[in-house]
């Protein structure tokens, strides 16, 4: 396929899954020994990365001003959390007290296995996530992926740098005015703020930002599907969700990437069905463990397809997703959508205005997004902050009676890539500058989520590069 596989370099740095946030890689077949080794490493080290452990211990002892407790203490705290999770009821779906015997097609209905209290909690969290004018900061890159971004601007990838950087994203003055939630990598769940020594999930909650997690997922090529993929991660998901809940998370996120490749018939029916079924099951498992599932079907920007094709494919994918969620008995009112914006392919030769793009987005939602779900937080997927904001704003300006959902953002690269640029050619992370720019960007995102943003020039338009109706060459 012409994709570079960085597996050997990866393996020295992390052993459990990779964040596939921006660049999916094909995972080779796991040899049995590798998996066993992975598991034992996970139980031995709190932050799951062999390489980092030794670095962490060194930095913990040398940075006396930071009140990071020794590794041994953190390990025992983690062990306590794990024991508490295991002591809870076994991870099997519980039959609701009043449920009739299940037979035939009625195996599960809309969270029937949840108590009224559990359902109410999920609805509360979903409502917090969907607060109008606020959005999600997606900080869930694994150490490998964030490491790439650090190293590209000359910042060393250490656990402390990752911790300090995320602290800025959580604690910058004014950020919580624009943030309803934050998605964390599991490593970050067990890190502490240097401000008050509290664990980050607690820090976030105290600021009114709901903490959530992206569980480790591995990407896998679906045989015979021209490189189309599925995400692996359902096995042991319930156990991990229980751990994340014990660590203070209130939601989780699972991303299923898809690509439009019309020539190769992708995404095919099989690709769509497989991925959407997995998303539905992930959602069910999350809810059974008290976490709101954010379901993320991510159709990539890559390609030359026009906006009409994008609409057609998005309707097909999302229809299948919500159908599977209903069939699986997911409690729709306690789930959140994080979808791509509907856009023409990055290299589509046809031009479109930002209003046309906004209309396409609303048309897709009207055709398949259940109104039982209260919020959709778009991913940025390679769009610049300017384009993403202009489009989100246009969508909210065009929203009408047919569009009762909160439509907001859940952005990582769009917001964070400019932050890394501030460190280029400088010595290490420029935390203050990062914080200031970050909050300024969030203010723009928030305005877009309210439909009160003013774009500059033709931000958000798609400028086609040629073809019958195209624009400039």
């Amino acid at each position, binding site marked *: 396929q012409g994709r570079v596989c960085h597996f050997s370099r990866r393996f020295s740095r992390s052993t459990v899954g990779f964040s596939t946030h921006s660049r999916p890689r094909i995972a080779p077949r796991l040899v049995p020994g590798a998996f066993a080794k992975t598991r034992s490493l996970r139980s031995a080290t709190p932050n799951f990365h062999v390489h980092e452990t030794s670095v962490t211990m060194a930095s913990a002892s040398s940075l006396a001003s930071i009140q990071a407790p020794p590794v041994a203490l953190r390990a025992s705290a983690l062990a306590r959390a794990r024991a508490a999770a295991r002591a809870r009821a076994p991870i099997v779906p519980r039959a609701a007290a009043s449920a009739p015997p299940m037979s035939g097609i*009625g195996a599960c209905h809309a969270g029937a296995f949840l108590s009224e209290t559990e359902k109410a909690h999920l609805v509360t969290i979903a409502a917090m996530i969907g607060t109008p004018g606020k959005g999600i900061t997606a900080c869930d890159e694994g150490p490998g992926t964030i490491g790439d971004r650090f190293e590209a601007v000359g910042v060393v990838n250490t656990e402390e740098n990752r911790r300090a950087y995320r602290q800025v994203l959580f604690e910058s003055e004014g950020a919580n005015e624009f943030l309803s939630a934050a998605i964390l990598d599991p490593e970050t769940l067990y890190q502490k703020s240097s401000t008050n020594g509290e664990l980050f999930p607690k820090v976030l909650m105290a600021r009114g930002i709901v903490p959530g997690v992206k569980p480790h997922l591995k990407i896998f090529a679906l045989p015979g599907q021209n490189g189309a993929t599925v995400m692996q991660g359902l096995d042991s998901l319930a156990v991990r969700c229980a751990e994340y809940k014990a660590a203070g998370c209130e939601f989780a996120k699972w991303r299923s990437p898809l690509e439009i490749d019309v020539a190769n018939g992708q995404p095919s029916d099989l690709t769509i069905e497989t991925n959407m079924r997995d998303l539905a099951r992930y959602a069910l498992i999350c809810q059974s463990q008290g976490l709101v599932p954010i379901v993320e079907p991510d159709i990539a920007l890559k390609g030359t397809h026009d906006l*009409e094709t994008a609409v057609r494919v998005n309707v097909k994918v999302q229809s299948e997703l919500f159908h599977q969620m209903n069939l699986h008995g997911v409690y729709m009112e306690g789930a959140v959508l994080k979808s791509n914006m509907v856009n023409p392919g990055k290299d589509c030769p046809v031009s479109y205005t930002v209003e046309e793009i906004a209309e396409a987005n609303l048309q897709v939602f*009207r055709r398949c997004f*259940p109104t039982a779900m209260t919020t959709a937080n778009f991913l940025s997927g390679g769009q610049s902050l300017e384009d993403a904001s202009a489009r989100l704003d246009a969508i909210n300006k065009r929203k009408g009676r047919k569009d009762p959902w909160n439509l907001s953002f859940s952005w990582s690269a769009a917001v964070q890539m400019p932050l890394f640029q501030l460190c280029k050619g400088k010595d290490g992370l420029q935390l203050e500058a990062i914080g200031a720019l970050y909050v300024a960007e969030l203010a723009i995102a928030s305005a877009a989520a309210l*439909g009160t943003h003013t774009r500059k020039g033709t931000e958000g338009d798609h400028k086609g590069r040629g073809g019958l109706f195209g624009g400039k060459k």
Partner: protein
Amino acid sequence: PAHDPTPPLATANPHRTTYRTTMACFKSTYADELVATAAAMSVPGKGVLAADESTGTIGKRFDGIGVENVEENRRAYRELLFTTDGFEKYCSGVIMFEETLFQSCKDGTAFVDLLKSKGIIPGIKVDKGVVPLPGNTRGETTTSGLDGLGERCAKYYAQGARFAKWRAVLTIGDALPSAQCLDDNARCLARYAAICQQNGLVPIVEPEILTDGAHGIDKCAEVTERVLSCVFAHLMTHGVMLEGMILKPNMVTPGSQSSQGGSSASREEVAAATVTALRRTCPAAVPGVLFLSGGQSEEDATAHLDAMNKGDQQGRKNPWTLSFSYGRALQTSCLKAWLGKESNVAAAQAALLRVSEANSKASLGQC
């Protein structure tokens, strides 16, 4: 902001066709007309009169009031309904049986012309009734009528019909509806809908889940959501344009033989369960959800609809109109007042008007 109709688009490609049809990915010469008709049928404050009883079924109604089931009586009864003064205030459309579509008033005015002159859209039942599912051991059915449907739709369109109706019937029971029943009925509904749209008729999609049974309201909710989810999945597969169709579902109620029994689930419970089921499964693009009455009394059918439109919206309005497409729940009082006598026509029409007005108010939540 409440945009209705959609604000115009600044487009980079002015020579492209209207955006709605382009982005519907729906290629039919009738697309704009279908959308307009479906919108007209979804005006809040109006509903549809289901007067499409087949010859056999209207015979049962006539039996109850001692009227002979002959063509002239059937024609006279429908003339009574359609000539009701002021009926057009509460009625956006009438579903007719094939015989009726080609009938006229005593003075020679064709029924379709009379209705059109009052601004009431003529519609037509196009299904040919339920038939047993082959190999099904539980007595489940599918609905027949797909063969030659395209030609019949064209014929009805030429006569003046602008929408159609197809009724699928499902039953709740132990392990029912079965996958076979659900799959086939949903598929037939989708194909019917696609054929209608290709021939200029707005399809009313009616997956009726009967109230027969001892199940509680939760079971009905579960089955309704599953059925609706499957129906919309098939509609998507068959490329049906949601903006140009109407959904006609059952309300979510306890089974008629349940210990919760007919009307003892509160109106608010029925309303909440029904709206919840729709929010989970019915896309916002569908302009109107027009409920069937399914044997409910006139009072219950009106009260349930009213509760839905009044009900706790959780701060969010429904994206579709919730209104009525009632048969018995609009006609029962009228039939009882008429008794087949010419001298009772005025009283019968007054009854129809009264019940229609009540349902009109219910569709606005103003009872």
